[in-house]
């Protein structure tokens, strides 16, 4: 398989430049805080600007969803052979269920399952072997992209399905997704509707709602205009010839599923979206695991934005260049901005409150707030309220696509995802930017 060397070259920063990068990120953040501190009303105008971008984005989704017809694939006369590649590293807790689900997938064509074990030490390779899966063992230099590329070289299928070892494919996944390749010979990949397998605690339920939106309404809508830039890591299907043409997965990239999506577009391939079946995957169950996952994702996103900056507002890349890529880049930038604004407001409010209490105590008064009823509802509340209403429409549309029912136990996660999650995600983005600026090490 030829290697696309352009994407393999990564800059190695000197220690001095790494420190300078970190300092630049911190100084930039402090400068913004200083600016807001001296001009508190700027935060309101920032919010207005962000709302305008958000409403443009939502409007685009709404118009595409309403006026771009659904493309219905038909079952192929001859089903292509499929190779399911399951990279695995120390996944003893989930691999049994993942392999069983992969084996249980019904398919009218020929399919093979290859587990690529990436030097596991927990016996997960043996579990897969006992279950009858073909296991390829890699030693030494680990990495999901490397494991997948290794698997592609051994694969017989015309279609490669990348399936995580903590993802439990539904029985009809192949039969629903593979026909999409028949819509157009230039379709290089088909994404699936990823959902959460372990929605037990609050954090998992929050992610469940997040996944519904990300892989439901938004993915389906972007699929209509060939605007998908991520082929979700838990499960996606690729045309093998497309992967071979673009040189396989980028082994130096932290989010190989996004990078391969962008590279497929760069080579003129299209990405379709199949939302007719739900693919449950295991998501982080603690904040520290979520932090680790998101920092990897967001570092990869920042890296890919830099790598593919030539796509920004470039009509040669159609809706990817004009909408999906710019919106992703803007989203990353604005998320960090929102985080700064939020924390500025939190810090300013706390500092104000402390000074207020101190001033009252100094004169022997009990601190008392005289709330001005007219001031309670302000422009911020109006803009945030409208954005939340739009977000709820996204969620409801996604729920309807997923054909699931949400109950009372999802009310609190929905509130938290609105009130708390953006702050958390913004923090993750900021941490990712810092780590990316200092080029700190990462591992799979």
């Amino acid at each position, binding site marked *: 398989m030829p290697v696309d060397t352009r994407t393999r070259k990564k800059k190695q920063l000197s220690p001095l430049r790494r420190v300078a990068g970190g300092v630049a990120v911190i100084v930039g953040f402090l400068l913004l805080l200083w600016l807001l501190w001296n001009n508190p*009303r700027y935060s*309101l*105008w920032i919010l*207005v600007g962000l*709302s*305008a971008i958000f*409403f*443009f984005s*939502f*409007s*685009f989704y*709404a*118009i*595409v969803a309403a*006026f*771009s017809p659904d493309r219905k694939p038909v079952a192929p006369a001859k089903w292509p052979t499929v190779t399911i590649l399951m990279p695995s590293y120390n996944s003893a807790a989930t691999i049994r269920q993942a392999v069983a689900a992969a084996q249980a997938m019904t398919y009218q064509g020929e399919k093979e399952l290859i587990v690529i074990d990436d030097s596991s030490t927990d016996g997960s390779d043996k579990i897969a072997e006992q279950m009858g899966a073909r296991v390829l063992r890699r030693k030494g230099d680990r990495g999901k992209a490397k494991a997948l590329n290794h698997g592609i070289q051994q694969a017989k299928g015309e279609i490669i399905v990348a399936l995580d070892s903590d993802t439990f494919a539904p029985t009809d996944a192949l039969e629903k997704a593979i026909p999409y390749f028949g819509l157009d010979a230039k379709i290089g990949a088909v994404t699936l509707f990823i959902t959460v397998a372990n929605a037990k605690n609050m954090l998992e339920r929050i992610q469940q709602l997040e996944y519904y939106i990300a892989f439901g309404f938004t993915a389906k809508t972007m699929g209509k*205009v*060939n605007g998908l830039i991520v082929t979700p890591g838990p499960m996606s299907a690729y045309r093998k010839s497309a992967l071979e043409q673009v040189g396989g997965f980028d082994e130096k990239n932290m989010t190989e599923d996004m990078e391969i999506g962008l590279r497929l577009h760069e080579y003129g391939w299209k990405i379709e979206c199949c939302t007719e079946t739900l693919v449950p995957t295991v998501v982080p169950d603690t904040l520290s695991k979520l932090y680790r996952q998101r920092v990897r994702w967001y570092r990869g996103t920042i890296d890919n934005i830099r790598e593919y900056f030539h796509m920004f507002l470039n*009509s040669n890349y*159609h*809706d990817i260049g*004009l*909408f999906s890529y710019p919106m992703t880049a803007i989203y990353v930038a604005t998320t960090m901005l929102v985080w700064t604004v939020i924390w500025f407001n939190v810090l300013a409010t706390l500092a*104000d409150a402390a*000074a*207020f209490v*101190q*001033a*009252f105590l*100094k*004169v*022997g*008064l009990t601190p*008392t707030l*005289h*709330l*001005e009823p*007219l*001031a*309670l*509802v*302000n*422009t911020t509340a*109006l*803009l945030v309220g*409208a954005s939340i209403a739009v977000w709820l429409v996204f969620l409801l549309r996604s729920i309807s696509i997923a054909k699931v029912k949400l109950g009372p136990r999802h009310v609190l996660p929905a509130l938290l995802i609105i009130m708390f999650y953006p702050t958390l995600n913004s923090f993750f983005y900021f941490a990712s930017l810092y780590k990316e600026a200092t080029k700190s090490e990462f591992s799979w």
Partner: protein
Amino acid sequence: MVTKKFYIGALLLAVAAMAVLLGAARLYDDYKYASIERSVRDFTMESDETRLLMAYGEAFGKDDKQAYCEALEANRARQANRGYTLVSKLRELEKANLLADYAQVRRQYYLNNFELWLQQSAARNDCQMQTNSTLALFFVDTLTTCNDCIAQGELLNQIRSTCPNLALITLASDLRISPIDLAKKKFGVTHSPAIVINNVQTIFEPNTREELAKALGCA
């Protein structure tokens, strides 16, 4: 393939949504502004009334000085009742505002207060108003959050509620209004909060209720 009409449609929809939202924000900001403007206008009318009373006093006051002074005292009591409440309302509404311009109404309010102070001072001289009454001129910062000013204002308000002979007038020390700057210079007001009592004594440090009540003759 790029479908231009999707982008144009999205742009139009986004512009419409923002126009509706900002229009609603503008309406609400204007509504809030109108409420404070109304209060300031009422205040202006009261000042006008006092000004006319004083003009009347100049012309005919000596004929029936007692009636003139009683009318002036009634006006004083009504205006002094406003104390600090309008200041805090103005501050809170301005903080929650995006599109209305409060500079004019803020300036108008403090100019009115300045005029009120002049009227009160003149009335004290003309009518030798009750010797037990106190005129307190309270200087605050309005462009930045001054918690000491807020706390001191709250305390003055509380004292005012139990001490009807206290006339409390608030002036913004940071708006560069020339007559207010002159008064600041006259009374040596260098920072806020500062209280000038009966146009004689200036106190700066935030005071406790007992200290302040004693200084204001409200103990």
